[in-house]
């Protein structure tokens, strides 16, 4: 049904600021609305993976992507906002460093090899659950949540390009070129995802599902923005990207099967079918040439590659637990399913 109608460009929309989820995000929203004398509480009192901190951080990161309606574009580099962002990042990164220990001699290759083994049972994986018993409503919820990343797919990773050189840079750019459609706007992966959303009857306007997304989803996107925006974390960004590319191909196959099983349209299946094929390539290029090239030049960064891989797994596990707990219980995994318009 998408091929006959004109495609709407998701990013023609500049979203409204979301609803605050606590004192931190309320203060950040106040600053963005230009309020004076806003008292920003210390993030030390806030749960590092909780809704309030993750939303505050997410909103500040969005200034680097699409911004918000009513917030001047120049505020991307507002020193006061950057200071708040820095304090939130310290809290988030501190929690990740504590929860994801990396030993001095830990190997990036061993960490990736571990991800390459396909589990026999697949318990605890969202893609196994959706393939075997996912309903249309659950697949729509999954797409609504993942849209926070996929409508800007591969954008956070583009920030690492100026921080790489030689073999790592050439390979990273080649994979990004593929993510951005290989020169064809219709094939940009973010556009393929918007087509999937249209097929599933979801709203494709950028930022539409932000209020519906729980902290666990926000954290997975904030991780990419954190790694992408900091040169000091360039190796973690590359480790993160590799870990997603390695696990994506088989996971995408299961999601394509889930969508076929519930009778979703061709465009919905296409997004995941494309990733089965593309990510079988991306995985090898990222392993051999991006990580291989980076570590050949800067071997001291190996621990951060491992950190990026494990931090990704840590936050993806938290998201999977949240989604599966809700769905196994017969509940929506969204914070506000009615407002998000995904109620079946």
């Amino acid at each position: 049904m998408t091929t006959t109608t004109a495609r709407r460009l998701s990013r023609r929309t500049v979203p409204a600021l979301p609803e605050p989820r606590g004192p931190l995000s309320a203060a950040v929203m106040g600053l963005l609305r230009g309020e004076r004398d806003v008292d920003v509480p210390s993030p030390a009192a806030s749960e590092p993976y909780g809704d309030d901190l993750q939303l505050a951080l997410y909103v500040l990161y969005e200034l680097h992507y699409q911004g918000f309606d009513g917030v001047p574009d120049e505020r991307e580099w507002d020193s006061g906002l950057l200071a708040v962002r820095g304090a939130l990042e310290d809290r988030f990164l501190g929690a990740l460093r504590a929860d994801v220990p990396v030993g001095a001699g830990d190997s990036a290759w061993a960490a990736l090899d571990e991800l390459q083994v396909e589990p026999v049972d697949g318990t605890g994986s969202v893609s196994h659950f959706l393939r075997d018993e996912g309903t249309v409503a659950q697949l729509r919820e999954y797409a609504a949540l993942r849209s926070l990343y996929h409508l800007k797919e591969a954008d956070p990773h583009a920030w690492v390009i100026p921080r790489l050189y030689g073999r790592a840079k050439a390979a990273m750019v080649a994979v990004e070129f593929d993510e951005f459609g290989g020169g064809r706007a219709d094939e940009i992966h973010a556009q393929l995802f918007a087509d999937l959303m249209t097929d599933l009857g979801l709203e494709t306007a950028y930022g539409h599902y932000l209020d519906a997304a729980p902290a666990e989803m926000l954290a997975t996107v904030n991780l990419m923005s954190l790694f992408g925006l900091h040169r000091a974390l360039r190796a973690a960004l590359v480790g993160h990207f590799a870990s997603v590319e390695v696990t994506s191909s088989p996971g995408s196959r299961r999601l394509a099967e889930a969508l076929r099983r519930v009778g979703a349209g061709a465009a919905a299946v296409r997004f995941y079918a494309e990733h089965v094929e593309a990510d079988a390539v991306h995985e090898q290029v990222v392993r051999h040439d991006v990580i291989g090239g980076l570590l050949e030049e800067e071997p001291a960064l190996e621990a951060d590659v491992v950190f990026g891989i494990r931090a990704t797994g840590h936050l993806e596990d938290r998201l999977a637990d949240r989604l599966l707990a809700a769905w196994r219980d017969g509940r929506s995994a969204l914070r506000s399913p009615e407002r998000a318009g995904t109620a079946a």
Partner: protein
Amino acid sequence: MLVEGPVEVVGEDGEVTVCDRFSVAVCTCRRSKIFPWCDTSHRKRAKRTTKDEDGTA
């Protein structure tokens, strides 16, 4: 097996399959469900201590 793209594969039945990606993963294990392209079906299967991840890139 990675081959620089674009790639044309001629099957045993003479059928030609084309892929114009910058680099193409050609299946050499014959287990791929999207043969002649790789879908990572060659991977080892085993009990894992960590969970399977679901992200797509």
